[in-house]
């Protein structure tokens, strides 16, 4: 009578140790799954902030490029009018043109630089190449224009994918905890069967989770 009772006690201790181990693994796997979701969320937040910053900088660059284009248009138009005045036979008109060139055009030129003063900004079709000026303005603030929200989103997607796969492992581990608990409570002959089932499910869940971690560690080139 003593021997079966002793055996039962040893089995209960073994199951208790297993339950503690699996509980700890479940907690760890749950934490990791939640942390992956959190990392993905942080990356999305960073990506959206980068998108807003980059777009705000681009908006300002477009506004400035078109404002400069307006100054350049007015400058070039004024020059052509002045040339007609300068070429006229009327001395008063010539004098007027000279005064305008000295006092008005200098200020206009400073506003119209570089679109109105550098011929390379004229597109082959004749209009001002505002896109070229915009690209230059973007290049002047590389800290903002080089922000890449899509890179953050792409990295977030890898964390989401890992979370998706890891949650399966976490569920298997959690399910094994249920079976181990059931084997501890059960006094039926099926107790060993339930225990083996629990250990098997736990093993599959653990191997699955470690495999997922390893694969995504490689895919992200060492980034945890």
């Amino acid at each position, binding site marked *: 009578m003593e021997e079966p009772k002793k055996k039962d006690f040893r089995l209960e201790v073994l199951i208790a140790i297993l339950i503690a181990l699996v509980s700890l693994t479940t907690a760890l796997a749950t934490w990791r*799954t939640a942390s992956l*979701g959190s990392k*993905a*969320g942080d990356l*999305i937040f960073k*990506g*959206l902030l980068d*998108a*807003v910053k980059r*777009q705000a900088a*681009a*908006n300002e660059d*477009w*506004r400035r*490029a*078109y404002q400069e*284009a*307006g100054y350049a*248009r*007015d400058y*070039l*138009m*004024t*020059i*052509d*009018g002045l*040339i*007609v*005045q300068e070429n*006229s036979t*009327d001395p008063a*008109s010539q004098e007027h043109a000279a005064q305008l060139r000295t006092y008005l055009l200098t200020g206009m030129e400073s506003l119209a630089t570089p679109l109105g003063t550098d011929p390379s900004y004229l597109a082959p*079709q*004749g*209009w*001002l190449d*505002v896109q070229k000026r915009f690209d230059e303005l973007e290049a002047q603030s590389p800290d903002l224009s080089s922000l890449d*929200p899509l890179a953050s*989103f792409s990295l*977030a*997607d890898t964390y*989401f994918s890992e*979370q*998706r796969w890891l*949650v*399966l492992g976490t*569920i*298997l581990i*959690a*399910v094994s905890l*249920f*079976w181990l608990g*059931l084997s501890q*409570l059960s006094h039926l002959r*099926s107790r060993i069967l*339930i225990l083996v089932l629990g250990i098997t499910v736990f093993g599959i869940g653990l191997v699955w989770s470690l495999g997922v971690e390893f694969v995504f560690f490689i895919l992200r080139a060492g980034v945890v």
Partner: protein
Amino acid sequence: MLVLTLLNTVLIAVVSALQVDANIRANQANRDSQYAAVQFTGSLIQAGARSDYDLNTYSVLITNTQEALVAEYSALQQQNINDQQGFEALTLESQIYQARADRVKSLSFLMNAPAYAPASDQVSPNMTTYLSDLNSYSLELVQKQNDASDAYHHWNNKSDSYVAVLTVLAVAFFLLGVAQMTQPSLRSLFSLFATGVISIGILWTLILLVF
């Protein structure tokens, strides 16, 4: 009862995975929607700055052309009343305005782009096509944003519903636990209740998967 418990655990595992997946898809769609909204505001600002410049350039062209014409007509009138000095001054003014108009015409996108340029000086540029092209990217972004927003609501509702299914299945777990602990005469009754609740969970999950 063991089979029922096993079925319920498997079902919970599947629904949990589906819930996580729906939640991830909702997050991604929400992100796409917000990103498209940021791009849309940028597109509107660019289109606004561009149309402001293009239309203003066209307006300057029209103004200078009209000023040149008016000065020319006035010069002819002065010539008719034998005011030679007035004729020459107004002719020069007309030439100045015409030179300005010519330059602005060469700078005008609306007057030179083949898609919008008028066939002759008597007609206006194709404003309808110009405005349509100008706003096409913004409209595309709005469509993208709306689609992503709809996808977000779709997946978010699914995710919420999966949580409800999980709650139902947790109730089934509780009923199975009670059945396990209770006296044999009541065990079947609790198992029956649990079966009913599990069936509701399965049915609900299938409905969510289909729609």
